[in-house]
């Protein structure tokens, strides 16, 4: 599947990137190049090969259900743009509120 400019706009929007028209024009062929390169994987015979989720040969890396100390509140919210009543304040999420 070729990547056209609409795909670039859509993916840019999903990633919250502000792309200029020039960038959209430039990225479209670049992304196609990258995909063509990755497409070579499709030439490999994979019938009967189980899908894997990880290339690390490990499973069941689990922790005991035990409590660990949390961050102090002032550190937890230190990176927030604004803090009100202990909560992060962000722009309205729902339009009709």
């Amino acid at each position, binding site marked *: 599947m070729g990547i056209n400019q609409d795909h670039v706009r859509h993916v840019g929007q999903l990633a919250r990137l502000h792309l200029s028209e020039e960038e959209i024009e430039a990225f479209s062929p670049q992304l196609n190049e990258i995909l063509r390169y990755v497409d070579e994987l499709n030439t490999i015979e994979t019938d009967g090969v189980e899908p894997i989720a990880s290339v690390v040969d490990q499973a069941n890396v689990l922790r005991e259900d035990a409590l*660990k100390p949390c961050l102090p*509140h002032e550190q937890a919210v230190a990176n927030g743009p604004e803090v009100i009543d202990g909560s992060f304040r962000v722009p309205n*999420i729902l339009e009709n509120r």
Partner: protein
Amino acid sequence: MTYEPVIGVEVHAQLLTRSKMFCGCSTDFGQPPNTQTCPTCLGLPGSLPVANEAAVHMAIRAGLALNCTIRSSNWFARKNYFYPDLPKGYQISQYEEPICEHGWIPLEVHGTTKRVRIRRAHLEEDAGKNIHASAGSGSLVDLNRAGTPLLEIVTEPDLHSADEVDAYLKALRDILRYLNVCDGNMEEGSLRCEPNLSLRPKGETTFGTKVELKNINSFKFVKDAIDYEITRQTQVLNEGGTVHQETRLWDTAKGKTAVMRSKEEAHDYRYFPDPDLMPLHISEGWIEQVREGLEELPQAKLQRFINDYDLPDHDARVLTSSRTLADYYETCVQLGAQPKATSNWVMGELLRELNHAGIGAEDAPVTPERLVELLTLVEDGTISLKAARELFPEFYASGKTAHALIQETGLRQVSDEGPLTEFIQTVIANNPSQVAQYREGKEAVLGYFVGQVMKASGGKANPKKVNDLLKTALLGNE
């Protein structure tokens, strides 16, 4: 046109772990905002998630109880989207490889039993909580809940009415509570229900366009929201309109659903396996070990109560509605109490006091031992049933033994012939015309005499004894 509603339900059940799904922060409810967070659940760079073994164990337990197949190999995936309550920009969930799939639970609605198929149940982490402040002042975000383990349980579209959804949710909640994997509290959000609903002309097999319902936080509102939506969609279709695929929020105050308008882009989650987490391999041995530890489920317990204790369906249902109440009841019976009499007491007097106090049977101030003592005293005639019932609130609250309380209140039942005969003679002497009626064969008058004797004794006379003695006395005085 008559339409048939087709409903599937997604339930998010918070698992009763102490710590979060992928970090050691507490899952305690109701703490000050952002005091139960760490670099992992805040999504800070360099932090790594590690899955909570207890959550995996609970998912397997729930899966087995829901008759699911447990996938021997399954893994976590990232569900990517932007929202302020999701600090990492993705939710760790499971996508193509859920831990549990292809299950079912039996469901009884209006006397008929059917199976509701469970499509899948998978592990994921909860998001934080948004508090929508008044217009203009923005939204407030509390990340205490972010990372709390959830089991998302998804049905096939097997439900067809608000009543069926209600029955399904209650059955599911009972199972999860019995297993001790979720407290089932809809008001606090530890059990959240999102039905999706479409209509199709009756007899049709293809599905209509479905609407997803959110923001429902009680069993009553689930029914209200579904009934509202059935009515709304019926009207849209009857007027020749089309139902749009959308998410609608239930508005409790207005009793309506309304389209959720979000600034966010249409969903395109770009799932992929989370490279930070290793896959789960669940061996047969692990599954068997969990299976052996499974408690008896509500449906099986219900049937056993009916069979073993010869209880009416209604009694068995009430008693098995919670595991602790069922345990309380069984302890009483094992102590030697008569099953049906015990059931009456537990469902009546005890449950009334428990409900009044808003507590469960596990916290009842009256232990099964003490209740059985009272029941034994009723059984052997030391105290009348009526007096025992009247005494119960004090018995429940005071912590005194039944013996002591009966002594103290003077409610010991009078069964001795001496004093009873005295009462009877007085009553007979005072009611010559009723005596004549009785002797003429009007046996119904006997009830009147029993009543009079009971009254004369201040309610303490043993009614059965009175009955016997009266019959003899009424005939013997001829």
